């Protein structure tokens, strides 16, 4: 990032470098191609099962094949016999006391190898196989781990495609919440307005009732005031006479 800043600063400082600024770090890497060579030894070829064949433990098989066209099967053996006789007769190989100890040691070694060679080889091979199996297991577990990581990554990438469900749900929730709030506020406004109107109505009712009662009281008071004492006596006497009449009628009826 700093290199980009430096490049742009250099471009502004010297206009001749403006073309150089166009070749940013990204372009340089885009033009150079990596990994163009053929991969060698990949995957690694497996170890050969057996080594080159060796006859008598000393002479490679290739020598016998080399002499076969010219001398047949017995050629190398005859050559070996002739060479050893030549060395002995010309005293290139001197017979010393060492020779006899060498012969006995070599004989002993050959006997031991012939007797225990196979079992020893199997034992060593088993050790080797265990080592190889261990390493193979490590490799397999590492490969499995990486494969699991790849699968999880793919699954998560697939999940990303389903993100829109989440957003739809969230959008729906928000729409519902907005709707609910709107209705709540509408209801509250309605209640408040009704409250105010009810108040006015009840005030009117109360005023009317009060007026009615007041009027009735006023009328009663005046009527009572207007009944003079004389009128009251006459009215009471008339009521008593009416009652006497009614009593007579009631007595006469049953």
């Amino acid at each position, binding site marked *: 990032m700093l290199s980009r800043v430096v490049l742009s600063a250099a471009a502004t400082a010297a206009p001749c470098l403006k073309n150089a600024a166009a070749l940013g770090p990204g372009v340089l890497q885009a033009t150079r191609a990596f990994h163009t060579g053929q991969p060698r030894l990949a995957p690694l070829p497996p170890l050969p*099962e057996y080594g*080159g*064949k*060796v006859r008598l*433990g000393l002479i*490679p098989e290739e020598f016998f094949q080399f002499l076969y066209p010219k001398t047949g099967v017995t050629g190398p053996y005859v050559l070996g016999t002739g060479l050893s006789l030549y060395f002995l007769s010309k*005293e290139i190989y*001197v017979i010393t006391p060492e020779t006899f100890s060498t012969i006995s040691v070599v004989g002993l070694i050959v006997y031991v190898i012939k007797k225990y060679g196979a079992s020893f080889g199997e034992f060593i*091979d088993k050790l080797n196989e265990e080592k190889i199996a261990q390493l193979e297991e490590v490799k397999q577990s590492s490969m499995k781990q990486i494969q699991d990581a790849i699968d999880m990554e793919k699954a998560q990438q697939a999940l990303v495609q389903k993100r829109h469900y989440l957003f739809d749900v969230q959008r729906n929730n928000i729409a519902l919440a907005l709707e609910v709030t709107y209705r709540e506020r509408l209801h509250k406004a309605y209640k408040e307005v009704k409250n105010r109107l009810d108040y006015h109505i009840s005030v009117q009712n109360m005023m009317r009732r009060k007026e009615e009662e007041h009027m009735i009281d006023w009328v009663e008071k005046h009527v009572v005031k207007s009944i003079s004492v004389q009128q009251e006596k006459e009215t009471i006497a008339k009521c008593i006479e009416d009652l006497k009449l009614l009593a007579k009628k009631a007595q006469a009826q049953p």
Partner: protein
Amino acid sequence: LAAAVLLKDTKLMDVKLGQLGSWLAMRDFTPGGIMGAMRRGYDRYYNKYINVRKGGLGGISMLLAGYMVLSYMWSYSHI
């Protein structure tokens, strides 16, 4: 037409007897070349006889036999 192989690139078994001297002269005798040749020889022997699954006796016995012959030759100067 098969392209003629340069003498420099032929293997030892393909060199004709008369060309042997010139072939030897063309080999790389710089220290780096000698080290490279020794490295190649060692790698060939190692990968053929020792770096195998079921190596046999021949791998080390040939080395020991070669060591015996070499030490015999060096210790007796009458040859």
